[in-house]
Structure formats: structure tokens, C-alpha cells
């Protein structure tokens, strides 16, 4: 009888892959959710240009004429309303300014409000220009809405980083704690299976899905929002793999002792929530005070996001991200080594 060759690594990896694919909910959260999220945020923050300034013109002999003069500038909308309504709207911010069409024309506005200030400039300019004022010097405008500097271009690398962190930590952390609480780890311990085979299989299974989960978001962003990938794809892949390894290690560390899924959930949040906030997923981490910048820069997700943005959006060569990748790698190696020491098999 020919003996089939069995490989523990292969079987353990297949187990992880099957367990994941046979859980439709997990598949949704890992693959569909990030795409939906980037779609929703991409739409919500689509660049629209500045809104038109709304001003009110109260009744008077020249009201219609004045309104028409003001609207000669396309960035202003003038509405004709009675003075009580106009003052109400000015107070509540519905209009930025009230114009009383007497001679001289009176501009009523709150000078402490930014949009009123803008209205004052735009309205005065429109009235003067229509009335025949000539520009003293020539100005030339050059308008810029460049691909790569929009919000969606900032967002996509951040979402990728957040996704790599989330699936790495949850995927490994939950599986380990479930196996421990179900005493499956103890059963494995009674067999000759080596601990490194078990841990390696988790990481291999992670890599199988990584390509798919990063690929789907990236492809979507490129096709739907025209997000650029300026640096090399090889470099980008390397960053993604390093990031995934690092967060697998961190997931393993977080799950190294918990016996219950509830317990590990709390720990996961403790580790991940600060990074969602500080690591520049949805908005730049530069917004936080200088005093805490060193802390923010030391976080693995900050380094991963910065590296992803540098290569993807700024088209930097991989070598320029070496410092960031060193931070990511240090976290991965450190947490992996610590996890192996702390790991509880029963």
C-alpha cells in the first residue's frame, strides 16, 4: 500500500484557510467591508470646490438691479427677502451678508465670521467691477486639483494599513483563544505537533488572504477613484507583507494568555483603538500636538501607514522608507519573541 505523505504545516494551514472561508461573516468583514468603507468615505469627501456664498438683498427701489450686479460673480447667490427674514437669516448663518440697496449701498455683516468676510470681498468686488472699475495690474490664475493630493488619496493607504492591522490581530488572536478555550491547544500539545508548526501555519494562512484583501481594496481604489500607485508594486507588496507579519506577531502576543474570547476582545481594543486614532488612518497624525509626536511615530500602524503613503502616493523608492520599515519590523520581531515566551497552551 502506498503511504500518503502528510505534512503538518500544510494540513494546519489548510485548516486555517478552510475555517476562514467557511465563515461567511468573516469573509464579508475582511473583503467586502473595507471596499464598502472606502467607497462611502470616498463619496462623502469627494472634492467639490468651495460652496457659493449666499447673501440676502432686502426690498428697495434698486433691489433687483443690485442683486443682478452681485450675481455677475458666479460664486455668489443673492436672494431677495424682506428685511426681518434677512436679519434672521444673517443671525442664523443661512446668509453671510444682508445688502440694503440704498444709495450708498449698505453691506451688513458680522466681521468676525469667515464666510461674511469672504462675502464682503466678493460682493464689493462684483459691484465695483460691474460699475466700471478697472484692474490696476494684470493677474493670472492657475487652478490646481491634482490627483494624489485629494482626501481619497490620503485615505486609501490608511485604510489598507488599518485593514492589515485588524485582520492580522483579530484573525490570529481569535483563532488562538478559541482553540485554547476549546482545549484544542491542549489536545495538540499531547500530539507530536511542534509549536512552531502551529504558529507558522497561522502566518502562512494569513499570507494567503493578504494578497486578496489588499488587492481588492487597491483595485477598487484605482478603478473607481483613480487613486495613483506611483511607487513600485514590488516595494508596496514588501511593505504590506512586513506589516502583516508585524501585526500577526502582535495578535499572537495579545492572545498569548487569554482563555476567553471576551478577555482577548478587550485587550485587542486596548491595543488597536489608540492606533485607529493616532496613526493617521482617517486624518493626518500631524494634527496632534508636538509633545506626543514621538509616541505616535513609534506606533507600528503610523510607520506602516507612512510607508504605504510614501511609496503609493509620493512614489518614493523603497529605500527611503527603511526607517519606517525598521519600526514595523522591530514590533513584529519583538512581539513574536515575547509571545513565544508567554504563550499558554492550556
Amino acid at each position, binding site marked *: 500500500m502506498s503511504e500518503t505523505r*502528510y505534512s503538518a504545516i500544510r494540513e*494546519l494551514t489548510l485548516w486555517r484557510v478552510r*475555517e476562514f472561508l467557511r465563515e461567511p461573516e468573516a469573509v464579508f468583514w475582511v473583503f467586502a467591508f473595507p471596499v464598502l468603507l472606502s467607497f462611502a468615505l470616498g463619496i462623502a469627501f469627494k472634492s467639490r470646490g468651495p460652496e457659493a456664498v449666499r447673501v440676502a438683498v432686502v426690498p428697495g427701489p434698486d433691489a433687483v438691479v443690485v442683486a443682478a450686479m452681485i450675481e455677475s460673480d458666479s460664486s455668489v447667490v443673492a436672494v431677495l427677502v424682506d428685511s426681518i427674514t434677512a436679519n434672521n437669516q444673517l443671525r442664523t448663518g443661512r446668509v453671510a451678508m444682508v445688502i440694503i440697496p440704498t444709495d450708498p449701498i449698505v453691506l451688513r455683516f458680522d466681521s468676525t465670521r469667515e464666510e461674511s468676510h469672504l462675502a464682503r470681498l466678493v460682493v464689493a468686488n462684483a459691484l465695483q467691477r460691474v460699475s466700471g472699475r478697472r484692474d490696476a495690474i494684470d493677474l493670472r490664475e492657475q487652478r490646481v486639483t491634482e490627483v494624489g493630493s485629494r482626501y481619497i488619496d490620503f485615505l486609501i493607504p490608511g485604510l489598507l494599513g488599518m485593514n492589515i492591522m485588524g485582520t492580522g490581530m483579530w484573525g490570529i488572536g481569535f483563532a488562538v483563544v478559541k482553540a485554547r478555550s476549546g*482545549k484544542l491547544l491542549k*489536545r495538540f500539545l499531547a500530539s*507530536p505537533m511542534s509549536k512552531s508548526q502551529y504558529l507558522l501555519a497561522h502566518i502562512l494562512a494569513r499570507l494567503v488572504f493578504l494578497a486578496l484583501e489588499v488587492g481588492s481594496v487597491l483595485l477598487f481604489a484605482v478603478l473607481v477613484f483613480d487613486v495613483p500607485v506611483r511607487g513600485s508594486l514590488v516595494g508596496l507588496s514588501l511593505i504590506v507583507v512586513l506589516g502583516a507579519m508585524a501585526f500577526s506577531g502582535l495578535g499572537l502576543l495579545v492572545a498569548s494568555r487569554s482563555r476567553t474570547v471576551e478577555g482577548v476582545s478587550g485587550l485587542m481594543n486596548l491595543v488597536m483603538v489608540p492606533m485607529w486614532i493616532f496613526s493617521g488612518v482617517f486624518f493626518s497624525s500631524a494634527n496632534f500636538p508636538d509633545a506626543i509626536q514621538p509616541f505616535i511615530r513609534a506606533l507600528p500602524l503610523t510607520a506602516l501607514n507612512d510607508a504605504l503613503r510614501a511609496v503609493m502616493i509620493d512614489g518614493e523608492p523603497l529605500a527611503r522608507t527603511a526607517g519606517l520599515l525598521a519600526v514595523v519590523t522591530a514590533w513584529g520581531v519583538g512581539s513574536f519573541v515575547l509571545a513565544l515566551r508567554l504563550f499558554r497552551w492550556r
Partner: protein
Amino acid sequence: MAANDLTTNGSGPAVRCRGLVKRYNDVVAVNGLDVEVGRGDCFGLLGPNGAGKTTTIEILQGLLPPDEGSVELLGLTWQRNERELRQRLGTQLQETKLPDKLSVLETITLFRSFYDKGVPVAEVLAKVGLQEKSAAWVSKLSGGQRQRLAVACALVCDPDILFLDEPTTGLDPQSRHQLWDIIQDFRARGGTVVLTTHYMEEAERLCDRVAIVDHGKVIAQGSPSQLIASLGAEHVVDFALEEGAAALPEPALLALPGVTGVHTDAGKTRLTVTRAHEAMPALMTLLRDRNAALTELTTHRATLEDVFISLTGRHLRDE
């Protein structure tokens, strides 16, 4: 590969442990326990919940280090021969939750892959009678089928010793018999079995030798028939009298022909009896003379349960 290296047959019995002690904080779970199991034997650790059976079997399997004492399996020790021992032992632990979303076949294959040598997966599947469930997910199996799968995962390495921790607890009678058949089949091929149970019937049916464990100690050891014989009686008679009736004096009962022991507990009297056909008529006569009416009378062949009761004054299971 080096499959032959793994079949080195050290001298000595399948299991030998001496003076095992295991403490959990202040609680002494195992308190100086000695066990010896011959090769090819089926050995049962019998005792109530909390007696230290599981702790003992986990120490034997190298899952827990003992605080004191020594363990030797197949002439090998955990300190020096862990790798080899792991290859040669089959294990079923209590409450193992096998992966829900793997099929029966995938689960057995997973466990097969951990061992250098073993039985083809299809063969194990047939042995435990799960061929038809081969493609079913573990989550879809009944309790009995899950337990047979757990035993299949233990048998797939063609072990020298099979450790089973309460293999039939919570199963219906039919599933229990199916598992007994699987265990007897393994023994018929020369395998050694060490199991824990709190079912007397299971121990009497499967085991050549039994150690009765209580409070972390072996309080009696021998074949089931030897242990039962140690009661000095083959039968047990239980009876209770009407409320208000005066209890029968112990000497009067002991004087009846064939009665070797009397034990009274909560209004019930238990007699151990050698010759039931002589003792019963004599008991009836005694009751009639004293005008005492029975409310309950049962008689059965003595079992290991009776041995446990006579040794500890307690039942094996709280019922």
C-alpha cells in the same frame, strides 16, 4: 525515514508510576498514587468526580508535570524521551472541541499529519464507523459521533498506548456500546488502554484491572472480579421498612444465614450476602416475626459500585 527507531521496545510495563503527587495551591489533587499497567492490558481509573483521575491521566501523558513521583511509559520517561513518546501515544482528552468547520475526514487527516507513522485515514474512518459522515462538518455531528471522531484522532497514529479520559460520559447507551466495541477492537490487536470512568459497568466490561481512586489515592486495585470478591459476597440486598417501624438490630441480621455485612444509611439497610437463596427466606421470616412491613426490597449481583460504597461509605455518582 527512521520509522524503525520509533519501535524500540524498552523493557518494563506499558505504564509505571510511583508516588505521584500533584497540588493546586492548597488542594492536593493526587496524593501519592502508584499505578502499573502491563502491555496489552486495559486499565481503568475508577472514581467519583474530583477524585484526581483526570489529573493522573494528564500527568501520565506528559501534559502536567507532577510535583513528586516518577512516570515511566514503555520503559521511557518524559524527561528524556518526549519526542518518541508523543509519537507512540494516542489521546482522547475530556471536553476537546475539535474545529467546527472541518469535515470528519479533514479532521482525522490533520491529526494524522502530526505523526511520522500511522494508519491510513480511510482505515481509521472505517474502524470508528464514520465512513458515511466523512464529508460532514464536525458541527453537524451528534455527541456520540464526535466522541468516535475524537477516538479516531487518537487511533490514527497506531498508538502503543491509548489514553481515554471519560470516553463515554454523557453518551446514550447505543453510542456507549459503539465506543466499547472500538476500544475492544484496539485491544484485540495488542494495544494497551488506560481509561478513566465513573461508570462501573464500563470498567467491568472493558478493564482487566481497575484502580479505585478517591481523594487522589488508590484505595483498591485489582481485576473487577477480584475487587468484587473482596466484598466476601456476591449479592447485595437493599430494603427499607415502613415509617415508624422499629429498626432491625444489626446482630439479628448478621446472624441470618449467608449474610456477611450490614450497612444502614438514612432508613435503608444494605446486606452483603453470599448465598441469596438462603438469606432471603430467612430475612422474610425475621420480618414476619417482628411484624415489620417492607416498603422497598431490591437485590442485585455485587458490582464495583458496591465495592466503592463498602470502602468509602459513599456512592460513586451523586444521583
